[in-house]
């Protein structure tokens, strides 16, 4: 099976964006996973699972409305921790919370033997293509994790140096018709 070193993301797909007033636009990501909504739900809410694929660590379970959880951005050049309160948790269908000011809405629909997972997230418009590329890779890692073939979490600045990331970033920027940030 694919190893950590061999992994290369596929082409950009399954992402849309909605322009909005202000700095934050909405990024919509859809991914079909070959696993049941119950398994996907666990991976989205349980801190032990999140640590294997998500761009943040959680110090508590995200699966209960009203739970207050600290989210630590992984790989930030300085420690970055924000606190969230879960506002919706209809297992295994819908999950809503806020990550450091960015609304996060997850929907899980049965799809054949698996799950169609949709994420709506508000994101700074300058980084919408970067966010799409980052989540694309996170979803690949999640898919491998659920298949018991983990390739290891890929988040933070190290991921951005990975050639597959820059290619995906450029592809999403082209699809969205936005500029990539220059640095």
């Amino acid at each position, binding site marked *: 099976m694919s190893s950590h070193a061999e992994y290369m993301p596929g082409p950009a797909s399954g992402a849309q964006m909605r322009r909005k007033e202000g*700095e934050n636009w909405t990024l919509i990501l859809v991914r079909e996973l070959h696993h049941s909504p119950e398994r996907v739900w666990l991976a989205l809410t349980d801190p032990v699972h999140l640590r294997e694929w998500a*761009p*943040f660590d959680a110090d508590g379970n995200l699966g209960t409305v009203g739970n207050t959880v600290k989210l630590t*951005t*992984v*790989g*930030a*050049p*300085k420690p*970055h921790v*924000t606190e969230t309160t879960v506002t919706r948790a209809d297992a295994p269908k819908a999950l809503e919370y806020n*990550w*450091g*000011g*960015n609304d996060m809405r997850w929907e899980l629909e049965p799809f054949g033997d698996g799950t169609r997972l949709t994420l709506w997230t508000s*994101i*700074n418009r*300058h*980084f919408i293509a*970067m*966010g799409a590329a*980052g989540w694309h890779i996170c979803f690949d890692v999640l898919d491998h994790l659920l298949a018991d073939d983990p390739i290891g979490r890929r*988040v*933070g*600045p190290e991921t*951005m140096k990975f050639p597959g990331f820059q290619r995906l970033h450029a592809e999403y920027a082209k699809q969205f018709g936005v500029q990539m*940030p*220059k*640095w």
Partner: protein
Amino acid sequence: MKIKLTSVYVDDQDKALRFYTDILGFAKRADFSQGPYRWLTVASSEEPDGTQLQLALNNNPAAKTYQQAMFQQNQPAAMFFTDDVKGDYERIKARGAEFTMPPTAVTGSTIAMLKDSCGNLIQLTQLARW
């Protein structure tokens, strides 16, 4: 060990980037984001590989309180050195920045103070030559 980075808190990173580049004349060095986090730095155009200044969002209560207290006490959040404080004062003022102190001789240097439009006072310092 080397000192390669220092930080100021800002209340708006886009506004800060415009101020520190378009008005002060620094150059963007790093700008990337993961979720809510944005790592944004600038450096002097005269010294692109020199110390970077991080423009950090003040989105936590400790940062906001610190920033406001420093501002109220007239304390600069950062100090930049120049060989021509009067020239910089005229140039930066012409671009719309608000100075709270024009170039003023003090012991060993001439200093000026301005608002960065993002919640901070910035001091410009020209060391005296003997």
